[in-house]
C-alpha cells in the first residue's frame, strides 16, 4: 500500500536507522491540535462544580484544592505530550508504549481526587487497562515476529500475513481497553463526575485520538 493514501502525502521524514518518523497532513492536524489543548491545560484554571442537594434548596459547590490541582495539571501536561508523541511516531513499539503510558496517566489524573465513587470507577478502569496491556504488547510483538520490523514505513511495503492480521486484532482489543471505548466505556464515564474540567478533557481527548491513530496503524498493517 501507499502510506500517502491514508493520511495524505508525506510532508517530511526523520530517518533514525530502522525507525523512521514521518509526518503527513493527518498527523500534523492531530499533533497540532494536541499541543493546542496541552497549552490551554497548562495555563487553564479549574471550574467550581455546582451540585444540587437533596432535601434542601441549597447548592453544594466542589472545587479542586491547590495541591491536587498541581499534581493533576502536571500529569495532564505529560499526558498531552505523550498523546502528541503517539500522533507522530512511525514506530509500532513506541506507539504501544505511548498508549500504555497514557492509560497510566489517565488513572493518575483521576486517582488524586477524594470521591469514593470516582475512585471506584478509576480502579475498574485501571483493571481493564492493565488486562488490555497484554493483548496490546502481545499483538505488537506478533507483528514484529511476523514481519521483522516495527517501522510503520517498512511494514507498509510488506504483504500482510495471517499472523500480522492476528497481531493487529489483538492490538485493537488492547487499544479498546486502554482507551475505554465501547464495550469498556461503563467504568470510564463514571470517572468524569469529578471537578477539574481541563484534566478531564485530556483523559477523554487522549483516548479518542489514540483510537484514531490505532485505526490508521491497523490499516497499514492489514492492507
Amino acid at each position, binding site marked *: 500500500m501507499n502510506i500517502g493514501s491514508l493520511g*495524505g502525502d508525506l510532508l517530511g521524514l526523520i530517518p533514525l536507522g530502522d525507525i523512521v518518523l514521518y509526518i503527513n497532513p493527518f498527523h500534523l492536524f492531530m499533533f497540532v491540535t494536541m499541543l493546542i489543548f496541552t497549552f490551554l491545560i497548562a495555563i487553564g*484554571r479549574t471550574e467550581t462544580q455546582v451540585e444540587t442537594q437533596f432535601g434542601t434548596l441549597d447548592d453544594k459547590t466542589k472545587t479542586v484544592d491547590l495541591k491536587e490541582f498541581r499534581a493533576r495539571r502536571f500529569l495532564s501536561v505529560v499526558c498531552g505530550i505523550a498523546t502528541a508523541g503517539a500522533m507522530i511516531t512511525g514506530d509500532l513499539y513506541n506507539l504501544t508504549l505511548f498508549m500504555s503510558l497514557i492509560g497510566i496517566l489517565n488513572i493518575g489524573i483521576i486517582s488524586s481526587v477524594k470521591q469514593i465513587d470516582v475512585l471506584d470507577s478509576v480502579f475498574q478502569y485501571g483493571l481493564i487497562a492493565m488486562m488490555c496491556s497484554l493483548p496490546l504488547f502481545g499483538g505488537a510483538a506478533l507483528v514484529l515476529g511476523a514481519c521483522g520490523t516495527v517501522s510503520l514505513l517498512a511494514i507498509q511495503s510488506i504483504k500482510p500475513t495471517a499472523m500480522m492480521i492476528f497481531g493487529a486484532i489483538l492490538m485493537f482489543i488492547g487499544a479498546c481497553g486502554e482507551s475505554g471505548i*465501547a464495550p469498556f466505556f461503563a467504568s470510564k464515564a463514571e470517572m468524569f463526575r469529578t471537578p477539574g474540567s481541563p484534566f478531564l478533557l485530556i483523559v*477523554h481527548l487522549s483516548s479518542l485520538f489514540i483510537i484514531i491513530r490505532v*485505526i490508521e496503524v491497523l490499516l497499514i498493517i492489514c492492507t
Partner: protein
Amino acid sequence: MYNLMADILINVCLAFLFGSLLLGLHRKVMARVQLRPGPPLIQYLLHSLKFFFKESSWPKTISKPFYVAITVILCGIWVTGVIVGPVFKGSLMIIFGIYAVHKIVEHNSGSSSGSPYGKLSCVRAVFSASSELLLFASVALIYLLSHSMDIGAIINYQEINGPLIFKVPLLAIMFFTIIVTKAPYSPFSITTGKDIISGFETEHFGFLRGYIMLSESIMWYVLLWLFLCLFFGPISLLWILIGMIIITIITGFISAITPMLNPNHSVMIQFTIALICTVGTLIQIFV
C-alpha cells in the same frame, strides 16, 4: 486564475448558509409531523446571527480559558472540515479527527461551565463518544474497497466502479446513523437532551452560543456532503443539494416520531448497529 483563499471563503459561507437553512427545514419538518406550523425556514440562520449581537454572560464558576476557547475551537475545526472536505477533498482520517475533537467540545463546554446540567452532558458525551467513534471508524472499511482514504480518490473509484451505496449498503447505514446522531432532537442526542435543559450549551450565551450555532450548521453541511460523496460518488452540486434536503427531511421525521433514548440504550443501540454492519460489510467484501 484560481484563488484558493476565495474558494475557501465561498465554501465556508455556503456551508454556513445551507447548513442553517437545512437545520431550519429540519425544525419545520418536525413541527409539521407534530401538527404544528413551526418556525420559518430561516429561523435557525436568524438565531445564529442574533446571538453575535446579544450580551454574553460569564458565570462565576467557569474554567478559564476553556469556557471561551472551546467554542472558538469548535468553529475552527468545522471550518477545517470544509477545507479538508469540499475544498481539497483530502483525507477522511482528518475528518475523523475533526469529529473526535467535536466530541471533546461537547464534553468540555459542558464541564467548563460548572453547571450541573453541563456536567451531566459532559458525562453523557463520554458515553456517546464511545460508540459514535466506533461507528465513524467503521467507515475505514471503505479503504478495503477503494484502497484510499482520500475523499477525491474514493469519488474517482465510484466513477469507475459505481456508487458504494449499492456495494456496501450496511456501511451507508452506519454513516447515516452518525448523521441521525448529530440531528437536533434525535433519539441519540443524549448530550443536548431537554431533561438536562440544553446540555453542554446551557451556560453559553451571546457570541459564544453564536459560535456554537454557526459551527453546528457547518457541521451538518459537511456531514451530509461527506455522506453523499462517499456513497454516491461524483454528483453535481444540484444533486448534492437535493440529496441534503432529502436526508434532512428523513432525519426530521425520525426526530419527530422517536423519543430520546436513555444514555445506556443509546450507546448499546449504536454499538450494535456498528457491530452488525461491520461484520456484514466484511462478509460482503471478502465472501
